[in-house]
């Protein structure tokens, strides 16, 4: 009998409860253009989550002057609710700028995209690694509010 390895009870899944291998975690629930609810943020202004050839991607824009800094597009990874699920729960993406590395963790809650951001500096500048959390609303909701 095959032994299923685990490090906690969450990892233990009965063979009959394993997810369908042909079904992939669908990031569509998080896809869209998300705008920071804080108009004066010094962090991330906007996040675009999309699907490219079935692969989820993230494009973030940092608060810069005179225009936001386009961080570019990176592939993201989707995580399910649990080990036996294919329902998307959260998305994870990493940006490596050379002088700095930033990981983003995004999940939806009550119509808001919550993004946890972990940043560490690799340039010896003395800046502390730090955590931040920002909140975003979907751009189409702004358009409907104005109508």
């Amino acid at each position, binding site marked *: 009998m095959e032994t299923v390895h685990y*490090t906690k009870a969450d*990892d233990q899944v009965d063979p009959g409860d394993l*997810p369908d291998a042909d079904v992939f*975690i669908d990031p569509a629930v998080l896809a869209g253009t998300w705008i920071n609810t804080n108009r004066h943020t010094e962090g991330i202004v906007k996040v675009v989550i999309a699907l490219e050839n079935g692969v989820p991607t993230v494009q973030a824009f*940092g608060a810069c002057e005179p225009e936001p800094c386009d961080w570019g597009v990176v592939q993201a990874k989707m995580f*399910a609710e649990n080990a036996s699920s294919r329902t998307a729960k959260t998305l994870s993406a990493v940006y490596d700028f050379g002088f700095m590395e930033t990981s983003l963790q995004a999940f939806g809650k009550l119509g808001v995209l919550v993004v946890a951001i*972990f940043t*560490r500096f690799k340039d010896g500048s003395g*800046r*502390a690694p730090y955590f931040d959390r920002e909140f975003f609303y979907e751009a189409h909701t702004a358009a409907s509010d104005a109508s």
Partner: protein
Amino acid sequence: METLPYVRAKDRRRPDGPLDLSGITGTWRNTNPNTSGLVKVILSHYEDGLAVQAFGACEPEPCEWGEADEVVACAAGPASRQPMGFTAQYHFGFMKTRLEANLSRGLLIIAGFHTFLDDSGRSDYFTREFFRFQQPTPTE
């Protein structure tokens, strides 16, 4: 004056001293006594920085995960000395887990990204659990 590279405005600052880890070290216990995830986490301060020990919910005793790799203690901002959380990695062979933790209103919130590396068919999944501070660790 040295110009710091940045891709967002808040990264243009630096602190005037090291991170003070005394505000985060100790034992943090899951607020859910019936959790099937992490039971507790012990954070310790060593000369090289922060050490993380996690314990998973197993029977009859919790599974001791040992000390995490690649631990990074995080501040509240690039110019802050106040600890705000950490990131850490575990490599179990059949699975790897990344922990991302942050303090919020006296609780330690730990997000777990669990990726299976075996052919068990299990989905990579996400967890988010809440921990309360239990006791400080003895000073070595």
